């Protein structure tokens, strides 16, 4: 099998353990290099040596042990083969210690990060809140923008650090910032989005995700998503970072329209923000969840769905939301909707929609601090929410459970399966008690998200969950199931304005 027009190079890494996913990914990457004919990355067991030998991928005189890792490359010429091997070795990113331990090198401080790569421009901070201000300040003083995932940072520290950032023209996204996409790079929880003309400045992580994902369905991509932290539009913080973010997106050539997403800001902050948006020089939508809709110089919408519809219309790409009327004949059920949410702003939007329709509802944000202290956020570990859903089956006052499912970077690899299992348990419990229980969901994600948008929806549907197009439409459907005002049609795409 030795080919006269190719060369074989082999490297043995004694007693080096790498998990199978790493090995397969490494081999796949090397295989794609120009001039590489074939690659093997396997444990050097006798059986594997025999397999590789049959295809001419190991020299006959090779001496190895079963615990050795073997990488073998056949390529068109020696430089190509050696370069591929060097790349493989780099891909293993190891420092061999005296004990044979393999350790990935990662900077532990801002200084180490800058020393490792002076070209970095953003620091992501996720230390416990009590330590975060120190690290954020170090990063800002080093000239870095900061994405601060940490929560439990005091308002005083937030104001001080945002002033420091603004003085330097740097973004401080957060504290408690869950979502950002900066120059195409996702930070925290974010979805796979195409590049496009809409910039989103958000004091709400899942709010930004829902709007950006709905825009994606309308074929509208994003230029930037700048998270500012949930308190930025409070009276105390006064929109310090929203102001800077708006300056930046106004100057951003790729941005043709702007969406600001937040819970309703303090009145004076809202007034100033709307004035700023009106003079931004680019069309803008202000999504203040729970606020009344208004069509002034700045379009104001009170739901995430409404904001996405308006923004899509601004770009001439109408967003269509599927109408799903509830079944004509419904068995009698308890009159209450129980919302069990992983996304805080999605929970807020559901409350608004259910409230407007007069539905009896209890909506819980399971990502709130009281549910996440010392444990993973339910978007990362879906078991917490699953437990609540399973337990809902025992609630005699609940006829409908309303849930979200958020996909994308940072979220669980398969949030639908534990939810589906919990749904089955809840429905079984209710049925055993002679009660009807429906579960209504929406999935926030894009077709590019690694969990698979359609696959996750299908898992839920297979479990008997009603899966709606948007969080707002799911809330409307839930309201209809318990006898509140039933929607007969979905919201229509807004006219281009």
């Amino acid at each position, binding site marked *: 099998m030795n080919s006269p027009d190719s060369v074989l190079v082999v490297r043995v890494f004694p*007693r080096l353990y790498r998990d199978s996913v790493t090995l397969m990914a490494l081999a796949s990457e090397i295989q794609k290099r120009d001039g590489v004919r074939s690659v093997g990355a396997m*444990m050097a067991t006798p059986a594997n040596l025999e397999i590789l030998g049959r295809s001419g991928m190991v020299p006959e005189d090779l001496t190895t042990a079963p615990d050795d890792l073997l990488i073998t490359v056949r390529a068109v010429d020696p430089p190509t083969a050696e370069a591929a091997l060097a790349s493989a070795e780099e891909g293993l990113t190891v420092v061999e210690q005296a004990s044979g*331990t393999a350790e990935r090198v990662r900077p532990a401080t801002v200084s180490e990060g800058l020393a490792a790569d002076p070209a970095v421009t953003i620091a992501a901070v996720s230390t416990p809140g009590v330590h975060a201000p120190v690290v954020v300040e170090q990063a800002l003083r080093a000239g870095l923008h900061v994405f601060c995932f940490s929560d439990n940072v005091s308002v005083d520290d937030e104001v001080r650090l945002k002033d420091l950032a603004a003085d330097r023209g740097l973004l401080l996204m957060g504290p408690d910032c869950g979502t950002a996409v900066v120059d195409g790079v996702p930070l925290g929880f974010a979805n796979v989005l195409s590049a496009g003309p809409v910039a989103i400045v958000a004091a709400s992580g899942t709010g930004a995700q829902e709007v950006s994902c709905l825009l994606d369905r309308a074929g509208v991509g994003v230029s930037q998503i700048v998270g500012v932290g949930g308190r930025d539009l409070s009276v105390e913080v006064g929109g310090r970072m929203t102001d800077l973010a708006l300056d930046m997106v106004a100057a951003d050539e790729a941005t043709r329209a702007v969406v600001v997403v937040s819970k309703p800001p303090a009145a004076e902050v809202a007034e100033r923000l709307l004035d700023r948006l009106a003079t931004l020089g680019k069309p803008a939508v202000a999504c203040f969840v729970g606020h009344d809709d208004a069509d002034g110089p700045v379009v104001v919408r009170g739901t995430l769905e409404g904001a996405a519809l308006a923004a899509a219309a601004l770009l001439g790409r109408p967003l269509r939301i599927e109408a799903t009327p509830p079944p004509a004949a419904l068995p009698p059920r308890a009159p209450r909707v129980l919302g069990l949410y992983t996304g805080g702003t999605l929970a807020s939007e559901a409350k608004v929609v259910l409230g407007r329709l007069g539905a009896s509802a209890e909506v819980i944000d399971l990502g709130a601090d009281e549910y996440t202290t010392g444990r993973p956020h339910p978007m990362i*570990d879906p*078991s917490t929410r699953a437990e609540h859903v399973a337990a809902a089956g025992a609630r005699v006052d609940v006829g409908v459970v309303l849930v979200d499912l958020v996909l994308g970077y940072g979220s669980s690899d398969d949030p639908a399966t534990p939810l589906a299992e919990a749904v089955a348990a809840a429905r079984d419990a209710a049925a055993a008690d002679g009660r009807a229980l429906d579960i209504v969901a929406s999935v926030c994600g894009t077709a590019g998200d690694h969990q698979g948008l359609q696959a996750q929806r299908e898992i839920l549907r297979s479990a008997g969950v009603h899966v709606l197009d948007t969080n707002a439409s799911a809330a409307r459907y839930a309201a209809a199931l318990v006898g509140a005002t039933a929607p007969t049609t979905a919201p229509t795409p807004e006219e281009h304005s």
Partner: protein
Amino acid sequence: MDQEAPERRPIRTLSSGGHHASLGGVGTNGAPVPTHVTVHLGPAGALPWSIHTAWRVVHVGQSAVVLSGPGDGSDDLFVVTTGARGLVPGGASLPVRADFDALRALARRDGTLDLTGWDAATAVHPVDLRLGTVAVDRRAVDAMLAGLAMDETAGVLMDPRPLRALAPALAHAVLAFDDAASAGVAAQLIGAGPGATPAGDDVVVGVAAGLLACGAVDAAATLRAAVRPLLERTARASRHDLRAALAGEFSEHAHLLVGALRHPGLVAAALRRARAWGATSGFDLAAGVAWSTAAASGTRGGAGAGASPEPVPSHARERRCA
């Protein structure tokens, strides 16, 4: 393996994973003490982390930290996993992610770890990983085989499917108590294929699980006799798993797959999860489980990819599955 396996305790339920409060403190030896630990006890009920005071760090992954006993190439492995990854024989699982991350951070810094302070963990949940018999539904076996046949591994590097295709041959050989044939097929599988635990080894572990699930303990003994002489031909992490399997102990992954054979409605979700176990390990394991239970229960068996050899003579066959 010949001993009667007790009824298996629940492995993990919705109410036992990931809902515990806070990260534990720091032990007197400096290692973080987890709040909750799910553990597979060692011989005589020993807590595995207490067996050595200086565990060597072999691998620090996103969902597993692999430790070994003192000495180069020690076969004494202690694998600490996340709750999502699940417990493996002789290992421990940390359901609170922060606990695992704390261990992971420490493992990066030091070449050795002293985890004896884990005795002070808030709660230790022992789990019996021995596999007992299962009421296998033949429709579930067929559903698992059908699901495996739809695997989209085609075209990837180092295709494991030729190794999976040996599963029915191995199962039929051991069910026929054919020592020579069993040893021959096992030799083709042990240490063969992609992965840190070579795919062929995962297939063998799956076959062992399927046989025990069907109560085919004598066939399992034939398998054990065929595989034991070959253990030195594979990597130590895989050797660890194989030794446990030959002793009748399996990872939570394997328990989940075997459990799914109780009803066809459970199979799709089990295979979905299996797809995420390593690069190909989940499906390699599932192939072993499905083909061995098919052979032991006389279900489809020879259909589809990896067709089985001649049927096992009925007089030589243990048919314990329903």
